[in-house]
């Protein structure tokens, strides 16, 4: 990946400036009114495109099954959002809440462990020399190119042999391997964690793992938050792996559960409304998280892309 770089971007050697927020330093003097109208108009049209489905589900979540098919999708009709939400949460003994909890376990637990494991590996690669270091790093990087779905089928067969298929572990364990996380951590640790600081801690008699846990991890926090977010969203949105691994609906994450409702909706039309309501409930917290945590996404991406 690195040899595709034609010329190094100007900031590639600079230490990371994680929380930096830069707002258009360019002066608006040379921007005529016409170009402003064109640019903002283009941006607004694009925003309509991205927000329309979100608006549609907001409206649809308030409708009865009959109104879902009988009234215009763009405006409210006999809103009954709370009734719908109650149905979503109580259907089949509240299995929706179970799915939500499962998604939180898979995504939260998986992302947390993935981040920690990637941090250790990235730090190890950045701060210690050993024979074959670059070969190991390149092997991990090659992992980024493997389509995850190609791994899921053989993984299922392997885990079936050791009776781990159709368990929490079958989704959790493969989810904690993040080659991209190791890549990001190595770059970040190499640039941001000063060798002098580690040397000083060593002279004070601290053990290597203690130095990592108390000194390095704290400095690497911005990169860690980014990796956690990526991995969390990746696991939360994953469909193929749980589909292949799980057959017990009690272990389903939200994606799999909602799809099972959707699949049966052809025979049981009220499931359409439950699918829409369930999708609405699952999308809202994630969207809020995206908005609130946006600066962390960008700080990590700057690192990832600059060296890409």
């Amino acid at each position, binding site marked *: *990946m690195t040899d595709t770089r034609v010329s190094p971007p100007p900031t590639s050697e600079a230490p990371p400036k994680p929380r930096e927020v830069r707002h258009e330093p360019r002066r608006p003097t040379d921007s005529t009114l016409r170009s402003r109208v064109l640019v903002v108009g283009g*941006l607004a049209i694009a*925003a309509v495109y991205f927000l329309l489905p979100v608006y549609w589900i907001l409206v649809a979540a308030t409708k009865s099954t009959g109104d879902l098919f009988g009234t215009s999708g763009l405006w409210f009709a006999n809103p009954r959002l709370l009734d719908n939400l109650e149905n979503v949460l109580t259907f089949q003994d509240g299995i929706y809440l179970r799915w939500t909890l499962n998604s939180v376990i898979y995504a939260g637990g998986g992302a947390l462990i993935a981040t920690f494991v990637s941090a250790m590996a990235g730090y190890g*690669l950045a701060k210690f*020399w*050993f024979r074959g270091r670059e070969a190991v790093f390149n092997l991990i990087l090659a992992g980024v190119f493997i389509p995850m779905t190609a791994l899921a*089928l053989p993984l299922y067969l392997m885990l079936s042999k050791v009776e781990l298929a159709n368990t929490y572990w079958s989704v959790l364990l493969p989810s904690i391997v993040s080659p991209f996380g190791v890549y990001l951590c190595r770059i970040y640790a190499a640039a941001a964690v000063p060798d002098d600081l580690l040397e000083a801690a060593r002279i004070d008699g601290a053990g290597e793992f203690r130095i990592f846990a108390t000194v390095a991890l704290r400095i690497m926090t911005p990169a860690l938050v980014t990796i956690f977010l990526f991995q969390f969203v990746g696991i939360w*949105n994953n469909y193929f792996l749980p589909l292949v691994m799980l057959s017990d609906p009690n272990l389903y994450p939200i*994606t799999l559960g909602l799809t099972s409702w959707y699949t049966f909706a052809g025979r049981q039309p009220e499931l359409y409304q439950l699918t829409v309501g369930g999708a609405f409930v699952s999308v809202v917290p994630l969207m809020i998280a995206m908005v609130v945590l946006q600066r962390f996404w960008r700080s990590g991406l700057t690192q*990832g892309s600059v060296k890409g």
Partner: protein
Amino acid sequence: MSMRRHDARTAAGFLAPFGILFALFFLLPIVYAIYQSLFTIERTGALGLGGEEQVFAGFDNYVDALQEPGFVDSLGRVVVFAAIQVPVMIVFALVLALLLETASARGVPFFRTAYFLPFGVPGVIASILWGFLYVPGVSPIVGALDQVGIHVDFLGGDTVLLSIVNIVTWEFVGYNMLVLVAQLQSIDPNLYEAARVDGASGWHIVRHIKLPMVRPAIVLTTVFTIIGTLQLFAEPLILKPVSTSISSHYTPNMAAYNEAFSNNNYHLAAAEAVLLALVAMVLSFGFLRLIGRGGDRR
């Protein structure tokens, strides 16, 4: 020298947890898939009632997979899909990133957030959402177009692939845009100043400064998009009940999934998974090679 040996041992300690997991859940499945793909199940005894036996089959499964029209069609379909999806995705993301980073832009934080929101929506839920927006009778889009005399069938044989392009674009453009914006923001603003002093127009600055500078990010997002598009699975699977044009072998992943779980032919499924991984690697490394050579010449 002793310092270095010490380094190696400490590094091994730090790398061990990831290394073990990577070996078990990344490398081993690849090896296992290749191994499985080289065997087949043969039934023994009269009428095959004597039981099953796993026998070495060489490349038979690969020959079978490549002779099955359904699988070859599905490979061709995702390659066509990638040929449309990758340029649409990258150009759209690039246009949005450049617009957001022009001096004339207003409301940048709002727009950036609006574009990035769909990245948080799982692919299956995005597909269910867009599915409702494609089905005549429910969709306000189809209804509105009907009223002005335009009759489109988003789920027909010729259009459904483009409808899937739209879903995937909606999901991931915002993420790719963010990668490009991050790189654009790392450009030294003095470069623009210098260019303007030299009399460069806004378009010249885009063409001769911004585009060359974001090249690494474009390469990165293109490779990830190629790998992503070949894995196409959830979107067509969700649209399948509402579109007669989508078969159970619509994409290589759907074909392999079906082979494994409907036909219980894990060996053929393994061969199909390996073939898909090979195509993904050939295309992404091929692209990198192409780009690398173009870069050297300059």
